[in-house]
């Protein structure tokens, strides 16, 4: 079933796109991530222009994240932490968008964006695989899970304030910095940043497990919402028809994924997420390491 997308200006197979979004939704429901880093490349692979793919994926990420927030419940939501994160994130998005414009002036934007993508995915993938493989080994040997030190460098920065729900007494600077980083990534790569936000909350901020999902999802929802608005208002690259397919497919996939997640062990899910991140990084690197079919590439109808 061919469907013409009004903003993307291309005709795509609606069934294929729906299948892709369900698959990404399944993974996001299973592993508690937005799945932006999988969705955007899949859309580009389907022939949708990269700018439209990134903008529309943020709309889908926002929808998935809002489901995550509500499902996790109000009790597990640290509103204060989320606002600190979102404040940093907002600055990050604005600076990220400006940075792209500035880099484009030198013809460097593509290189920086691509290298950031590869570098981030592979670093996170390798670190997570290492950590979760260790956790799995401990589980099989019947050892108790490794106890993390209660305080990290992030807890020694002065100017502390109390985050009641997270049971933390830390400076707002580390979470604001973390929000800033995800904001930059959202603007640069069109991803929500859940795959970096959640691990950083565990290992850097030492937030209790029960508040992490809802709080990180709220931050992702706000950042994705701002990014979607920026793309729609300034670049006219958000395709509503495509977004609706992604949101419906993603929601169905996520529900199925969530059912499976209940039965699985946390360590196994973490390992699976690490493997998927690593696979995505490997696929991306492999695709770019091969000599290209044509030495030139074309982008039609560019704004600037």
């Amino acid at each position, binding site marked *: *079933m*061919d*469907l*013409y997308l*009004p*903003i993307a*200006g*291309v*005709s795509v197979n609606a069934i294929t796109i729906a299948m892709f979004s369900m698959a990404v939704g399944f993974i996001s429901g299973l592993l508690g991530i937005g799945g932006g880093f999988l969705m955007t490349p899949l859309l580009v692979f389907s022939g949708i222009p990269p700018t439209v793919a990134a903008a529309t994926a943020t*709309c889908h990420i*926002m*929808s*998935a994240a*809002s*489901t995550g927030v*509500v*499902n996790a419940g109000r009790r597990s939501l640290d509103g204060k932490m989320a606002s600190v994160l979102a404040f940093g994130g907002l600055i990050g998005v604005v600076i990220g968008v400006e940075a792209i414009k500035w880099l*484009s002036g030198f*013809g460097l934007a*593509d*290189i920086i964006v*691509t*290298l950031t993508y590869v570098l981030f995915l592979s670093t996170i993938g390798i670190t997570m695989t290492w950590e979760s493989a260790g956790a799995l080994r401990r589980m099989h040997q019947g050892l108790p899970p490794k106890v993390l030190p209660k305080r990290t460098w992030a807890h020694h920065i002065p100017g502390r304030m109390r985050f009641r729900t997270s049971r933390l007494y830390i400076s707002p600077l580390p979470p604001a910095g973390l929000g800033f980083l995800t904001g930059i990534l959202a603007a640069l790569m069109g991803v929500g940043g859940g795959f970096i936000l959640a691990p950083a909350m565990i290992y850097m901020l030492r937030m209790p497990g029960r508040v992490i999902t809802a709080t990180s999802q709220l931050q992702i*929802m706000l950042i994705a*919402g701002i990014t*979607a*608005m*920026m*793309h*729609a*208002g*300034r670049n*006219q690259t*958000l*395709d*509503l*028809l495509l977004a*609706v397919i992604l*949101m419906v497919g993603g*929601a*169905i996939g996520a*529900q*199925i994924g*969530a059912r499976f997640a209940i039965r699985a062990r946390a360590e196994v899910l973490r390992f699976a997420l690490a493997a998927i991140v690593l696979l995505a990084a490997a696929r991306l*690197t492999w695709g*770019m*390491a091969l*000599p*290209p079919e*044509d*030495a*030139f*590439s*074309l*982008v*039609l*109808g*560019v*704004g*600037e």
Partner: protein
Amino acid sequence: MMRVFFLMAMILFISFPLNTSARTDEGVAAALTADTVEVTANFAGARLSLYGAIDRAQKDDTDIVVVVYGPLSKVRVAQKDRVLGLWVDTDPVVFEGVPGYYMAASSEPLENIVPFALRRFYQLGPSHLRLRVPSHEQTIEQFGLPVVISDLGADYETYRQALIRLMSREQLYNLDPAGVRFLDGGLFRADVQLPARAPTGDYLVSVYAFQNGQLYSKRSRVLAVNRVGLERMIYDAAHQHGWIYGAFSVTLAVVFGLGATLMSRRRWL
């Protein structure tokens, strides 16, 4: 009575023009099978035909060229280069005034029927398209005349050829040296195949008749490719009220997200 006779004579004169000079001035006639192409949700490209006619007696001396020239836009061309072992886009160049669709069909290969200067002048064939890179251009005065030079130098031609090559691969640029076929007498036909990626807007369809390498007659038609219905509504909203459209999309995303939680609570899935 006299007046009626005069009127009838006039009608006769108009209906049956003298078979001498009037015929040669007729030139070429052209019509499209459709003046508009509607881009709907199931648009997957369109195929239409141009029918044209020339004087039967002139048929053997006349060569026909049909050119379809789509709406203009900017196109960015980047060269892939190896950075840290990875192939990434570098040194992008933005071409302006690039037709989003182009077709040149003719009854004979263009180089056999139209001299180089005229092919360049009328932009006959993708390689003769006037493509400019304003950001790398400057106008200097030479021999008292303004001359536009490009600081891209020899690279300009490489980028230009890459643009034409990549557009041709998407079937957005087409060259068909046998695309104009004579059907009967002076009647001819050329088929236009618009791919789904063809841009919306007004297309200029021109029919050129050449005799001995000289332009003898030209006829132009406009083909409108328009989004209609839902496609149109979404496109217009996104371009005219970007922020409201964005706010609507974001609200819809939240509504979908909340709907999904209801779905899980009711155990519908």
